[in-house]
Structures are given as C-alpha cells and as structure tokens.
C-alpha cells in the first residue's frame, strides 16, 4: 500500500515537476477539442438588398449577437457579441454614405469596447441612453452599413435620402445624421405620459406620425416634420372603451387597435389631423366568437391579423376603412413584414402549420386572392411552431420574382426556405444552455454501434506506415498533411459506443427554448434533439420555464439492456408558486418516456444518495409551502426513503431576506395535500444575517458526485493532517448592503465581504472570515476540503482570489503506526455531524488580474490526480490554473522539505501563463458556465464550456501518466519486437552452429 502510494506520488512529482504548464502544439488543435459558434434566437433579420449583390442576411438575436450569415450555407460571415448591457433593439441597413473616417475616429475616442473589428464605431454623442453602433456590413469601403441601436423601448428607424436616421428610443424621438453621428434634432415625449405605440413615416413625405395612448382611453397623435423636428400637429381623442395591447398600422394615416375587452376592433384614422374612430365588433366579422382577440404585429398596407385562442383571422381594410375577413384558420399562422418589391408593390408571407408540413404563401398586399408563391415544406415536429418569418426576393433567370424565407422556429432554430426546400438550418437554441448533464453511451455489442468505423487491414497498415514515416522524418509535406487529416478525422472519436477510457459520452443539454439536445463529446455533433412536451406552451402551462436536469436512472447492473434516462424539471411561470413540470427522457434515443404536470410547485430539487432496485435515483422535490415530495412514487422508493428518513435534512437560502434555514422531515403530510409520497417538514435552525450589514451574494456547495481519494494529506516530514471532508458544507459570501452595487460605487470603508462555511445539517458556522474593503461579485468553487473565491479588493483596486482549506483536528492524534497497520482506528467509520467538530482552517489571498465569469475545478474518476481550477475570464476564455498556486501553506521561502512536497514560493499575485489557456486561440463568446466530467481514465477530465459558443476539450492536469498518447506509434513498436525476435533466432542458430563446430574440432 505504501509502495503504491509512493509510486503514485513519485509519478506525480516526476511529471508535475517536469512540466507544470499545459499547452498544446499547433497540430494538436482539434484532436480532442471542438468549438461551435451559435447566435441565439433571432429577433430581427435584415437581408442585404440585391443592389449590393451579396447573398447575406444580417440578424440580431436575443443573446445580443449581431451577425451576418451566408444565405447559401448559413455560415457565419461575421459576428459581434455585445455585452448584456448593450441590448440590441433593432437593426437596419443604411445604404450609402455613413462616413468611414468618422466612425474610425469615434471608435478610438469612445474606447467603449476594444473588441470591435475594423470599420466599427459607436456613436454615443449628444444624448443619454441611446447608443447606435454602426458596423460595416460588408468590407469597410463597400458603403453598405448596418445600423443597430440599443436601449430603446419602442424603436423605429427610417433612412431618408439625405441619410438621416430617425430613432425612437426611451421616450424620445431622435434624428441622427448618418454622416457624423450628430443629433440633428430631438423631441422628448417623456414628460407627456404618452405610451408611444408606433412611429409611422409615410413613404415619400417628410412627415412623421407618432401615435400612442396617453391614458388607458386617450389616443394621441403627433405630426412632426422629419427634416427639423418641428411639431406640426398634436391631436388627441378619447375612446370610452379603452385600448388593449398594440396597434397595427394599416395605412400611413390609419391604425387598427382593440378595445379593452378585446372584442371590438377599432379603426383609428387621423387623416389631415382629424382623429376618427370606427368600431367593429369581432362577432360581426366572424360568426362564432372565440373569446378576446390579440393583434399579431405586422406592418402590411391594408392587411392585419388577429388571433383568438387558436384561431387566426386575417382581415383586409379597404380604402373606405371597411373591414373584411379574408381568411380564418385553425392552423398556427405567422405573418412576415412587408417587403417592397418593384413599382411600389408590397409583398408579404404567411406561414401555416398543417401536421408535418408548413405551407408558405407569398402574396401582394393589395391582392389577397393571388399567390406569388405557394410552397409546402416538410418540417420536423421537434422544431415546434414558426415564430417569425422574414422574406427576401430575388430575380430568377426568367426575370420573375423568386422568394426565400428565413424562419425562426419555436425551438429557436433558424431555417432558410427556398423553392420548397430547407436550404439550411441552424440549431441556435444551443446559444442559451440552461443546464448540462452527461450520459454514457451504449455498451459496444453487435448491432448497437451506429457509426461504421471498421476499416480494412490494408488501410490500417497504410495509416501506420504513414505515421512511421512521420516519426522517422521521412514524410513529404503531402504525407504530413495526410497524417494530420487522418488524426483529425479519426472515426474512433465519434463512434456511438462506450470506449475503454470513457472519453466518449453524451452531453445532455437543456436550452432556454425547452429543447433537449444530446451532443457527442467526440466531435460535438447533435445525436438527437427533442422539444419537450412539458416545456411547451399549453393551456395549463402558459409560460413554461426549464430549470434543471438530473440523472434519473444510470443502469450499471443492466447496462446492456436498459437505457439511462434524465429528469428535466421545469415550472409554469416565473412565480415561486407556479406548478412544476417533469419530463423523463431516454438519453440513448431522446424519447420522452413520460411527462408529468405537477400540482405542487418546485422550489428545491434534492437528488438523494439512494437508488431503488431499477437504479432510479430517489429525488426529493420541495415545494414553496415546504412540503417534500418523493419521486419516483413507488412503494419501494417510499420504503427506502423511510429507512433513511431521520437522516435526511434540507436547507433553504433566502437571499432576499438574508436567512438560511435548516429543515428536517417530520412525517407524512396531513390535510388536503395528503399523499403517500408527500412529507411534512419542520424548521431546525436558522441563520439570520443582519440585513443592513450583510447581503447574501453567493452560495456554493461541493459537487455531490465528486470523488475524494483520501482524507489524509501528507505534508513535509511525513506529517499527516486530516482533511475535513463533508458533503454538507455550504460556502456563503455576503457583502455590506452598500457594497452590493457595482464595483467602485462605494469607498473601501463602506464595503466588506464576509465568507462563511456552514454545516447544512446542524447549522453550525465552522468558519467566518471578513475581507474589509472588498466587494462582489463573488465567484467561488468548492471541492474536497477547500473553497476558492474571487472578489474585488477596493483598497488595492484589484481582483483577489482567496482560498480556505478546512482540516479536522479531532483526527490529528491518529499517529500510532501499529494501530494503523492493524486497522484498529476509527478513521473510516461513519460519523455523525452532531458530534462536536474540531476544525482548523488555513487561508491565503492572492491578487488576480482578470475579472471572472465562472470558476470550475477539474474532477477525475478516483480523485487522485491533482486539481486545476478552470477560470472563465472576462475575455471569454478558459484558463487552467494549478491548485498548487492556491495553497494556503505557501510561504515566501519554503523549506527544502516543503519544496520537495511541491509548495511554490509565495507571490502576491497568481501567474497567468499564456500557454495554460485551455481554449487556446478560441473564444467561448458569452461564456456562462464550465462543466467538468471525469473520464474513466484517472488522469483525464472532460471540460465543457458553454455560452453563446460551445467548447469541449479533454484535460490531463498531471499529464496522461496512465496511458500512451494517441499518436503512439504501435507500428514502430511492432516492427521493433519482430526485429528483436528475429535477431534472437538468428543469433541463436548461429551460436548453435558455432558450438557444434567447436565440439567437432
């Protein structure tokens, strides 16, 4: 045992002292890592006009991404990811003369963001809270510009002949020169309690109409001269019925609205400054009414649509403001905005769902009866409904118009339809991942493997001969290229079966769209995707939200014939009392095994450390009323649960009131919620933080499935200290109420940060430390017996990282070797947290250059390999930092023994080694989370970082000490062995012969 541990230590020491820096060579990029770029759900799309001759579309998304996509393949031509503070409210393309030198100059002046490419600038002159960002949509000198603006409530953008951009934002109408960003005029509506609904600019005139509701029943209209901002007319008229929701402009001086009951359509016209209302009850238009209606926003001349429950009604407005129903359908319908085609004609598109198909129709606005285009496209059910459609026209070779449609689906995917086919599709919901878990792949056996990977012996030999050539440096450049492509396209890594080293797994990700994906860790391809029924809008669940993913069933005993499954937890609506929704999904096939709409809410989900006979994990769901519900609802699960009943506790962190409460289970529920699997709970303890001096900003626990190899830590001179390893430790960081704002908003004297380690079973505070003059945000990671957290030090004007390690003193006197040899110690016997703990902590702080988006720690299957911290930096990269740098036992001058132990001399700041970026040259835009999963090979851990982009790689924190590298040349080994064996035989026969001759002599 001692020898084994020594060997492990030796190997570690040997390798870690050899090369503490992890880096990879250029030709290793893409061997084990993959990177995927996404955009998020498209909010708005603008096609390049065919005048520019470019087949591209510019989109802005809910993830604050603006990107240009190639229409042929859907590839990203360029992309900018804005911060969450720069919400894009609208984009448009300005043709012509937005001046380049100005933008360049402004770019350097503003210095707001250093991440822009050439030809990008930010207007921030003149007015508050409006930011226009101008990006060259093409190359810098091409002259086609894209305008984006942010922070607007209602937006509208028009481009005049002399390049004035008119923007409505934050209750203000602004005219901005496109040449130099100067504000030509502005009109403030803020003071007038006006809820602006629309800004209408009739084509070919210099007038602008601003329409809106002043109170619930007053309609207001402002007429403004677009050239100088002069208010020409202001009219208002009251309507006793009130207004509901939005207005839809049908003509340049007519809008359609609904009254407050949603049953009467109002045609409001303000021709020549006179406001007139025309009422039309919907029941007069359609025979059978379906309840209150809603206007579907669109901007087509003479046509608008309303929706009543599931029924969509398209209504035409004639010149005399008469309403006619032109279509009534039960199918889900989406309508595009108007597209100007030649001779002042407007075209628009309608999309309707019918089973597995969607029907796309393109019509002229003034001619409902004829279709310019009618197509049916086969559509997967798992994409859900069409949410948005954008159309674009092109001229066919026979001079007629062709149309292509860009559609945004319910699952946030983006598709381009042309000539009745899906030209390309993008799974952009992967830009908004909520939760990630992993699943093993099927065990290899006949008929299970999905990918065909077996190739013949000849190819195998050829590959190895090439490799051999490479090793012996005999390879030509073509050979080297062939070797490289062979390594990258290694079909082994995307195989659909379990591998020996556990590198191949499925990443199950839940996205904001309620769609579940399984990504293969080998190359990142989507194995299956499923739009969850339980997270789709329905009558019982109006605003479903996906919350979390848990491993529900992980079969080990029946791994051959049972599939693992995951539990997806969601809830209906953002309120805490909203009922929950569960889904069980098979991770091999992506089929939803079952889904449940719960009657109770879901406030906490506690996966218990017990499984039933079918290896389903027991989960305890706590609702908002503090009742515990056990899943699965089987008698077996209940009996297992009741056996452990008295040992199960739970705690709740109420961060807004600053209270942490501990609870225990009491018994079966009584009263109206009585149920076999419902349990009552009682409060055991509570920790109340004084609200004026401490506000909870971060809580972290250890990963529940983390494996710790040993409880002892051997320090210099063979001394042993015992780690305090508990699954029930909670790290809590609080800041002073004043300091809970942004960094720098308070003086160092007013702000402090307190870190706690709390036992969540007994409520005991094991450690408390105050950092004076420090401020959040706090990012922390908890592993084994240590916690590392990152915060801002106001006094030093720098970010800091601190480490707390917690050790158990009560075990320290286990020093008698003979007792340990004979096993007469109680170090491994189960302990109760109610026994009095005797802990000591060691801590240390260091400066750290970067601000941090996320921190994670590597995890390996046995917990032997040394750990690395994975830090998601503000630059959207992932930095690997050895845990040895965050060791509280570091001193400025370590002794010889401490040096041997691997203690690094103490420095004031943590080093950032450029080679230790695990994302190497790539960037995971909008980085939100880093997940580590152990591989089966002890040395290796799998890392998945997600944000707008996805990145996956394998890491070996202490190098791969337990396996040969991928490019190990087996052929060379084989040849050497064969040569040696041959040599042995030859020399043997030679020596035999010689001996015989000697004997004859």
């Amino acid at each position: 045992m001692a020898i084994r541990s020594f060997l492990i230590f030796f190997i570690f020491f040997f390798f870690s002292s050899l090369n503490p820096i992890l880096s990879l060579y250029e030709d290793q990029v893409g061997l084990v890592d993959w990177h995927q770029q996404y955009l998020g759900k498209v909010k708005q799309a603008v096609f390049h006009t065919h005048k520019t001759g470019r087949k591209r579309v510019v989109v802005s998304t809910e993830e604050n991404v603006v990107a240009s996509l190639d229409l042929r393949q859907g590839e990203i031509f360029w992309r900018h990811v804005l911060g969450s503070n720069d919400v894009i409210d609208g984009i448009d393309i300005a043709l012509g003369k937005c001046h380049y030198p100005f933008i360049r100059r402004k770019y350097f002046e503003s210095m707001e963001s250093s991440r822009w490419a050439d030809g990008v600038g930010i207007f921030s002159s003149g007015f508050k809270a409006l930011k226009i960002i101008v990006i060259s949509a093409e190359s810098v000198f091409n002259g086609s510009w894209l305008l984006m603006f942010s922070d607007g409530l209602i937006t509208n953008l028009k481009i005049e002949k002399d390049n004035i951009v008119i923007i409505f934002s934050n209750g203000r109408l602004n005219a901005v020169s496109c040449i130099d960003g100067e504000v030509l005029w502005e009109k403030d509506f803020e003071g007038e309690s006006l809820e602006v609904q629309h800004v209408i600019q009739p084509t070919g005139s210099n007038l602008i109409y601003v329409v809106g509701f002043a109170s619930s029943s007053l309609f207001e209209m402002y007429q403004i001269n677009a050239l100088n901002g002069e208010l020409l007319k202001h009219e208002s008229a009251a309507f006793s019925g009130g207004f509901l929701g939005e207005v839809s402009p049908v003509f340049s001086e007519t809008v359609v609205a609904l009254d407050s009951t949603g049953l009467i359509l109002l045609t409001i016209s303000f021709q020549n400054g006179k406001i007139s209302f025309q009422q039309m009850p919907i029941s007069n238009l359609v025979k059978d009414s379906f309840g209150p209606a809603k206007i579907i926003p669109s901007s087509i001349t003479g046509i608008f649509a309303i929706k009543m429950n599931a029924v969509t009604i398209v209504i035409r407005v004639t010149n005399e403001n008469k309403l006619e129903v032109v279509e009534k359908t039960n199918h889900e319908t989406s309508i595009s905005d108007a597209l100007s085609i030649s001779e002042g004609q407007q075209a628009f598109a309608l999309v309707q769902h019918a089973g597995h198909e969607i029907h796309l129709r393109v019509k002229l606005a003034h001619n409902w009866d004829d279709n310019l285009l009618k197509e049916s496209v086969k559509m997967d059910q798992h994409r859900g409904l069409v949410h948005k459609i954008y159309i674009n026209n092109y001229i066919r070779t026979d001079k007629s118009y062709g149309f292509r449609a860009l559609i945004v689906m319910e699952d946030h995917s983006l598709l381009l339809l042309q000539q009745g086919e899906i030209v390309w599709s993008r799974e952009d919901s992967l830009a908004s991942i909520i939760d990630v878990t992993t699943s093993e792949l099927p065990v290899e056996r006949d008929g299970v493997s999905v990918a065909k990977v077996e190739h013949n012996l000849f190819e195998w030999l050829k590959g190895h001969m090439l490799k051999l050539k490479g090793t012996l440096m005999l390879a030509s450049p073509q050979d080297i290229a062939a070797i490289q492509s062979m390594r990258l396209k290694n079909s082994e890594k995307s195989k659909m079966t379990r591998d020996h080293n556990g590198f191949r797994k499925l990443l199950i990700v839940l996205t904001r769209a309620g769609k579940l994906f399984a990504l293969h860790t080998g190359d990142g391809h989507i194995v299956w995707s499923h739009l969850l029924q339980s997270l789709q809008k329905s009558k019982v669940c109006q605003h479903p939200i996906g919350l979390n993913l848990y491993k529900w069933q992980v079969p080990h005993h029946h791994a051959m014939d049972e599939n693992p499954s995951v539990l997806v937890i969601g809830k209906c609506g953002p309120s805490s009392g909203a009922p929950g929704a569960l889904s069980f999904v098979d991770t091999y096939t992506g089929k939803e095994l079952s889904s449940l709409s719960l009657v109770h809410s879901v406030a906490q989900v506690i996966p218990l450390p017990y499984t039933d006979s079918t290896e389903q994990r027991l989960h305890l769901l706590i609702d908002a009323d503090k009742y515990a519900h056990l899943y699965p609802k089987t008698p077996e699960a209940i009996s297992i649960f009741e056996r452990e009943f008295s040992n199960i506790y739970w705690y709740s962190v109420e961060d807004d009131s600053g209270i942490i409460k501990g609870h225990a289970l009491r018994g079966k529920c009584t009263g109206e919620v009585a149920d076999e699997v419902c349990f009552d709970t009682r409060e055991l303890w509570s920790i109340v933080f004084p609200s004026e001096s401490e506000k909870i900003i971060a809580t972290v626990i250890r990963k529940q499935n983390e494996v710790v190899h040993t409880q002892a830590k051997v320090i210099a001179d063979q001394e042993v200290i015992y780690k305090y390893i508990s699954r029930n430790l909670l790290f809590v960081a609080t800041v002073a109420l004043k300091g809970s704002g942004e960094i720098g908003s308070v003086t160092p004297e007013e702000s402090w940060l307190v870190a706690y380690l709390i036992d969540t079973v007994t409520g005991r505070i094991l450690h408390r430390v105050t950092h004076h003059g420090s401020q959040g945000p706090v990012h922390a990671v908890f592993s084994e017996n240590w916690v590392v957290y990152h915060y801002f030090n106001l006094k030093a004007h720098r970010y800091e990282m601190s480490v707390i390690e917690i050790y158990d003193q009560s075990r320290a006197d286990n020093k008698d070797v003979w007792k340990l040899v004979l096993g007469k110690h109680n170090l491994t016997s189960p302990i109760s947290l109610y026994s009095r703990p005797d802990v000591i902590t060691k801590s240390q702080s260091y400066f750290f250059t970067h601000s941090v988006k996320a921190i994670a720690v590597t995890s390996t299957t046995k917990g032997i390999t040394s750990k690395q911290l994975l830090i998601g930096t503000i630059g959207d990269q992932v930095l690997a930092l050895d845990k040895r740098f965050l060791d509280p036992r570091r001193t400025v001058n370590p002794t010889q023994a401490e040096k041997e132990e691997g203690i690094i001399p103490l420095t004031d700041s943590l080093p950032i080694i450029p080679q230790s970026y695990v994302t190497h040259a790539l960037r995971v835009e909008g980085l939100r989370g880093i997940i580590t999963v152990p591989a089966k090979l002890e040395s290796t851990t799998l890392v998945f970082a997600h944000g707008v982009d996805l990145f996956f790689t394998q890491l070996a924190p202490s190098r791969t000490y337990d396996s040969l590298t991928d490019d190990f040349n087996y052929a060379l080994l084989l040849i050497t062995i064969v040569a040696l064996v041959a040599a042995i035989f030859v020399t043997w026969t030679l020596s035999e012969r010689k001996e015989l001759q000697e004997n004859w002599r």
Partner: protein
Amino acid sequence: MGAGRRWAVDFSDNSTAPSSRDIPDPPGFTRASVDQDDSAVSRQKKDAEANWKAQKAWEVAQAPFKNLLMMGFMMWMAGSTVHLFSIGITFSALWQPISALQGVGKGKLSYDFYFSNAVDSSKFHFDFAVFEPYKDNKVDLLGPKLLFIALNLGGLALGVWKLNTLGLLPTHASDWVSSLSPAQEVEYSGGGIPL
C-alpha cells in the same frame, strides 16, 4: 525411511567424499589407514595449511567491512532525496548483504548433500560457500562465520536505515492513512436557493 520406500539406489558419485552410508569399504581399502597414514611432515604441512586457512577465513570474514565503509560513503554522497542515484545506491546496499547471506543457503545445500547422515547427531553447524575452500577439521570457522554474518547484517541494517531516511519504509502514520477514503457521513442534506 518412509513406509512407501522399499529400496533406493543412489547414483551420486561419492568417490571423492567419504561414504555416508554403512557400506563396507572395498577389499584392500581401509579408510582408517588413509587417515592414519599421516607422517609427522605431513602433519606439519597440514598445520601450516590449517593456519593459512584460518587466516584466510578471517580475511574473507572481514571483507564486508570494507564494503560497509564504501557503502556508507556512497550513501552519504547520495543524499536523502529520492532520485535515481540514491535509489540505486540504496538498493545495491541492500542487495550485497542479501546476496552474501544467500551464501548461507548455498552452503547449507552442499552441507546437506555431503553430510546428510553424519551430522545428524552433531551440534549445530552452519556452513558457507565462501568458506568452503578453508574447510578443515582443524580450523574453527565459527568465529569468521559469525563475523561475516554480523558484518553483512550490519550492511543490511545500513541499507534499511538508508531506505528509511529516503522515506521508502512504511514507518510513518502517513504511509498507512494516505489512501484511506473519507469517512461516511450519517446525515444527508441538500437544498440551496429556491429555483
């Protein structure tokens, strides 16, 4: 003799050694006459030879001492950190006494072979391959042998001590607890910020 063994023929060549069994000597050959045939000269010669043998035996017995000193010096040179050199020195320091003491085994083998019967009743007697050339009835090899063993044991002890200073012997508590898995906790708790 075991019950299952009726008869046995020994094909071993016993011609050079005195017979170990109660086989009568061939006619015309008297064993006693060979022994008693010693003249005074030959006796003297034998004495000188015995002296020389005893001296040589003592020399051989003392040989490990030099080795011991040499080893000590090498160990001091190697230092107390674990690396290839110090491990090599230590293991050779352990191996040399062990291989020398393995001579015990070998010596006993030959001894069993030659005197399996004769020594049955004799006192405790051990033998060494290294001392084989100096074997003589008149030379008392016990002293050199004991010294030889003691010195080799000393060498072994030195090697073990070195092994310990290198930290390769499980004599510390740390060697026995370094792979103890953490203790199980009876209680289980979960929760956090409400979803």
